[in-house]
């Protein structure tokens, strides 16, 4: 399937034009996207920092993960919806931007990292979750998550500059 014609059709759709030409809607969506960082990344970073051993060391890992996960997921959902609307406003330019491309790859890698963590070392969290010192694999997952999400934020911000358009 050819992507370019699809993106061009998307860009000329009424929804894309409406968002682009709106006076208030676009800035509101952008503000929502930025401020939801506090919810999504704030919660995600809290549990990553717990895994790494830098924060909340007195709180069991399973509790940090279980109790903050719904908030993190809610934040992620708002990020995806608001981000998709921003993408929809200029799909051709966004998809051709190297920062956007790196951002999408970093999100995918963060997803893989989370999936691997949940299906390996987190499965036996009952054995280590109470201790202040967590297994090396869990710490690595925490570091990877922090690094990847930081890269996502940086690329997202840089995408707005037209350096590589």
């Amino acid at each position: 399937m050819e992507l370019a014609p699809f993106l061009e059709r998307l860009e000329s759709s009424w929804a894309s034009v409406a968002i682009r030409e709106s006076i208030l809607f676009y800035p509101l969506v952008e503000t929502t996207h930025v401020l939801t960082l506090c919810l999504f990344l704030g919660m995600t970073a809290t549990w990553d920092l717990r895994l790494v051993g830098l924060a909340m060391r007195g709180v069991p890992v399973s509790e940090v993960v279980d109790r903050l996960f719904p908030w993190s997921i809610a934040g992620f959902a708002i990020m995806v919806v608001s981000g998709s609307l921003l993408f929809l406003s200029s799909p051709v330019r966004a998809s051709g931007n190297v920062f956007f491309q790196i951002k999408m790859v970093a999100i995918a890698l963060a997803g893989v990292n989370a999936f691997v963590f949940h299906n390996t070392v987190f499965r036996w969290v009952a054995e280590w979750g109470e201790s202040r010192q967590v297994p090396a694999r869990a710490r690595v997952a925490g570091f990877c998550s922090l690094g990847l999400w930081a890269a996502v934020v940086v690329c997202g911000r840089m995408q707005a500059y037209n350096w590589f358009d």
Partner: protein
Amino acid sequence: MDWLPMFEWLEATSVGVAIRESLWLFPVIECLHLLALALLGGAVLVVDLRLLGLGLRSQPVAALGRSAQPWLVGSLAAMVATGVPMLLSEAIKCYYSPPFWYKMGFLVIATLFTSTVRRFVVAADSGRIGPFWRGATAIASLGLWFGVGFSGRWIAFY
């Protein structure tokens, strides 16, 4: 009092000039500002959610407050350390931007509220302050910090 002469002076500082003349300095500082925002938001939310009876519910509020405190102070310091250079680079624009003044107002009130009322409520044991006032404190904190963030983003638009 007219702040314009002061903002003209800020705009003319060597740091302000250097950031304006650099292609990449402003965006890089912006990125650091955003990363600190995520940490600040996390540190505020974890405790405010707990005051509302949500999130890390089985932890005592005071203990959670102590855990979050270095992150709250550290990320706020990082916000200021990255925010000031950005202000220097476009001080005149900020002077004429209503959202900038709203942001500064919210920032002063949010910082004062957090370091006094909220700090007291978080440190007090739950017997002395009931769920209503704890929840009200959390809502006020969330509202004030939201005001800072929202008007901060709108400096770019107006």
